[in-house]
């Protein structure tokens, strides 16, 4: 990992590391980016060296901060109101004796947002397990069913309530988007959950689910990285988790050092990107476009 020994003042080290990385990126031979005619027999695409640099840098940063967290270094994470609201929503559902509904989006388990939703589901199941209220999980893709069953079962087991786990509460509805929405609306209208947690990848059905949930008087917390659905969640739900906050949820709820470490790594990557943006804009303003062109991907 990058070690920058010069500054004695620890608070400036992250900034100096960013500058050091930027200099390294600038020094990489730009001729590697020249397009070649025929790459079908090649073992490396030189047009993607910029991607390789970013990937190696990002992986290195994440792994570094995870290892640092494992050594016991405490890491701060700012408050995210929407995530605090999950516990409040579950508490309110318990008071009213009504179920909790967790909707993990409509995409398959090979999509990262669904993986993130499954991670959150485990945390929610652990919260719900302590109370005697059902946790309904309607599923859109069959492959998500076994993963969701495992997460809920594990959540209940880790809360010391394996007996409370009901397999029938994890239900496959339909692969078809609007049939799934119709099925979930049915659950909302008839089972009347008090807390609706919508996390994952959603499309046009997002507004349907959020509005129906609002009509039933439930507290709604939604989170997605699908930009086009965020406006509807913001309007219709009580709390909305925007974009990257969805992937930070598991770290936030579990407070596990390894997960918090990866969040810190993400933040450093964002800082580097902001530095690159600033530098690129300044250089382009003075007519120097080579730096910008280095980031072009064919």
């Amino acid at each position, binding site marked *: 990992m990058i070690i920058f020994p010069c500054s004695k003042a620890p608070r400036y080290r992250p900034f100096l590391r960013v500058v050091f990385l930027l200099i390294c990126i600038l020094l990489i031979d730009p001729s590697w980016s020249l397009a070649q005619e025929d790459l079908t027999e090649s073992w490396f695409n030189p047009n993607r060296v910029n991607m390789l640099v970013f990937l190696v840098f*990002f992986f290195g940063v994440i792994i570094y901060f995870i290892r640092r967290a494992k050594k016991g270094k405490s890491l701060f994470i700012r408050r995210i109101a929407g995530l605090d609201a999950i516990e409040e929503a579950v508490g309110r559902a318990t008071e009213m004796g009504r179920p909790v509904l967790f909707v993990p989006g409509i995409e398959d388990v090979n999509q990262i947002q669904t993986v993130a939703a499954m991670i959150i589901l485990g945390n929610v199941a652990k919260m719900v397990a302590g109370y005697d209220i059902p946790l309904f999980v309607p599923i859109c893709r069959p492959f998500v069913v076994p993963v969701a069953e495992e997460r809920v079962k594990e959540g209940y087991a880790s809360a010391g309530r394996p007996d409370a786990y009901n397999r029938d509460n994890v239900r496959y509805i339909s692969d078809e988007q609007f049939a799934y929405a119709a099925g979930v609306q049915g659950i909302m209208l008839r089972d009347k959950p008090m807390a609706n947690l919508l996390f994952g990848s959603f499309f046009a059905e997002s507004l349907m689910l959020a509005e129906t949930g609002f009509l039933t008087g439930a507290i709604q917390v939604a989170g997605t990285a699908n930009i086009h659905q965020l406006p509807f969640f913001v309007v219709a739900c009580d709390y909305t988790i925007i974009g990257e906050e969805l992937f930070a949820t598991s770290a936030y709820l579990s407070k596990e050092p390894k997960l918090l470490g990866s969040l810190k790594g993400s933040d450093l990557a964002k800082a580097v990107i902001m530095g690159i943006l600033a530098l690129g804009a300044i250089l382009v303003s003075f007519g120097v476009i080579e730096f910008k062109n280095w980031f072009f991907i064919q």
Partner: protein
Amino acid sequence: MRREIPIAICFLFGISFILEYFIPHEGVLSIFETIRQWAIIVIAFAYVLGIANLLRINYHVVQRKQRDWPYKIILMASLFFMITVGIVFDILGVGLGGIGEGTIFGWVYYHAQYPLQSTMFALLAFFIASAAFRAFRIRTFQASLLAVTALFVMIGRVPVGESLWAGFPDFTEWIMNVPQLAGKRAIMIGAALGAISTALKVLTGLERTYLGGE
């Protein structure tokens, strides 16, 4: 080993697909295209789990005569009907079996499923109206930003906007090309970094939630 082997498989295939991005060799790309087809096949097998889950839960409701049990019969009957006309009729060589136009399956799709889906989609017009009504009940400064911008964009994109103020369409374009674009880019960059971080944790086994307990 019950957890280590799946984690190793996850890592192996994950890293392979990452490396595939950098390798333009034709032979390598065709191997990975084949592996992508494997994932589709595996997901097709998993569909049986979904159908079994659907049937098990609805059968229990019918058996115990719980709430709405007659409708569960309709659900299961329509499922079996589609499978029967789609596969069984085709295997037995019964006329109008199989999928596609001119088959019973095709008729049910065009005259039942398609209208049902389209109508569910069309319900969004009512939902968006009720959401807009609530959005315009401004309570905070942030909510007011959202509501006012939505109003400007809605008015700017219809002829009445231009008749109110000639610059309305250009102003709407500016909103779309500047603040909306900037916000969208920031969300994309942040979400992508979060997604990559999560994917990396899954590949390295730090996140092994999909495996469940022992």
